[in-house]
Structures are given as C-alpha cells and as structure tokens.
C-alpha cells in the first residue's frame, strides 16, 4: 500500500515537473539582450508580427522555444536564434520574459458566463435522453 502511494507521488511529480520549468530569470536577462530587438526590452514588442512575451506563462515560453529548437515549430528566424542555445538557456529566457512587463502583461481572457450555461444545457439534454 505504501509503495503504491510512493508510485502515485512519483508519477504526480513527473507529470508536474515541466510546469516548474525552473529557469533563472537573472541569467535569462543577460541572455535576452538579442531577443529585445524584436520582442522589446521587457517582452512588450511594438511590432505586430512579433508576439508579446511579457507575463506569458514560463512553461509555455519554454515549450515554444523547445519546439523551435527541435524543429516542430517552423520559423527560420526563431530557429536560427535558438540553434546554439542549451535547454538551460531556454529555461532562463522563459523565466525572464515571464517575469517582465509589470503593469503591462498579457492577460488571461475571462471565462464567459454563456459558456458555462451552454455546458449546463448540454448536460440537461444528455440527462433527458438517458431518462
């Protein structure tokens, strides 16, 4: 029983590990100098084609950089930028931009009321059908 608990804990730790990308924002700051030209000093780019990064989730930024590095996500410019970076570099950069843009960060969209209403209606219809 105890070993089952240990296994469950290990699995949970493994699953949650990527969310704690664990980069060092101060190391990221030094490495981010070249990024600033296109994405802005604090990750608030002023060019519409280049995404804002300020306040974006660290784990998402790391995932995006990783995808550029392994070629899953195609963008000649970004692929060139990350080609010589290590995975630790990517983590540090993600940590840096995630922590930037105080007062002017990306926002989570609000969950609208009508979404939850439509889910409830669907639930009701399913329930009616099953009765």
């Amino acid at each position, binding site marked *: 029983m105890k070993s089952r608990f240990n296994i469950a804990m290990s699995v949970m730790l493994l699953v949650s590990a990527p969310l704690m990308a664990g980069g060092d924002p101060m190391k990221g700051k030094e490495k981010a100098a070249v990024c600033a030209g296109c994405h802005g000093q604090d990750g608030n780019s002023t060019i*519409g084609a280049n995404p*804002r990064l300020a306040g974006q989730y660290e784990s*998402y930024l790391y995932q995006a950089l990783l995808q550029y590095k392994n070629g899953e996500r195609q963008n000649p410019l970004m692929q060139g930028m990350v080609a010589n970076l290590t995975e630790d570099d990517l983590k540090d950069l993600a940590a840096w931009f995630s922590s930037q843009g105080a007062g002017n960060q*990306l926002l*989570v*969209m*609000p969950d*609208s009321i009508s*979404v939850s209403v439509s889910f409830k209606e669907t639930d009701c219809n399913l329930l009616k059908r099953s009765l």
Partner: protein
Amino acid sequence: MSKFSHAILVATVSFFLSSSIFAVEGDANRGRIKAETCLGCHGIASYTNAYPTYNVPKVGGQHEEYIISALQAYRAGSRPHGTMQANAISLTDQDIADIAVYFSTYGK
C-alpha cells in the same frame, strides 16, 4: 525614378504587404461570440495542456497580427498542435480576424 513614382511604389508595396495579413477587417463584438470555444482553455488561469504539460498561453492583449498568423498556421497545419488545428480548420478569414481583434483589444 522620380521621387513621386518612388513614393507610389512604396505605398503600393506596403499596401499589398499589409493587406496580405489584414485581408478582412475584424470586429471585437463578433469575435467575443466566436471566441467562446477558445475560452474553454484560454479563459482559465493556469490551465494546462496535457502531454506535454505546459500552461495554455495567455492571449489577452496579444498582438492582432500575431494571433492572425498563429491561427492561419494552425489552420494550414504548418504549426503543430492537434487541438488547435482541429479548432482552426473550420475558421474563415473573417472568424480569425474577429477573434484576433477581440483578444488583442482585451484589457485596453
């Protein structure tokens, strides 16, 4: 080339460059209605993607042009992500433009 014809050339080229991404004009109110599906994931703080695990990106206040290009890439299948490709495949250029304006103007 005269200065005037040079100016016309620059204006024409920049018009075609800009019109390629902003082919249709978006409307935030239409976008708000069309974006309901999006909010099932992008409207929940710290919501996570599964396999691999990472947070679903924040899109509130993201640049309109970038959102348009991202959705177009998902629709074309050139940017990988099963769920996003499945959601984007049925979107028209007008839908994408509307959603992009709604997201980019959120909080402003």
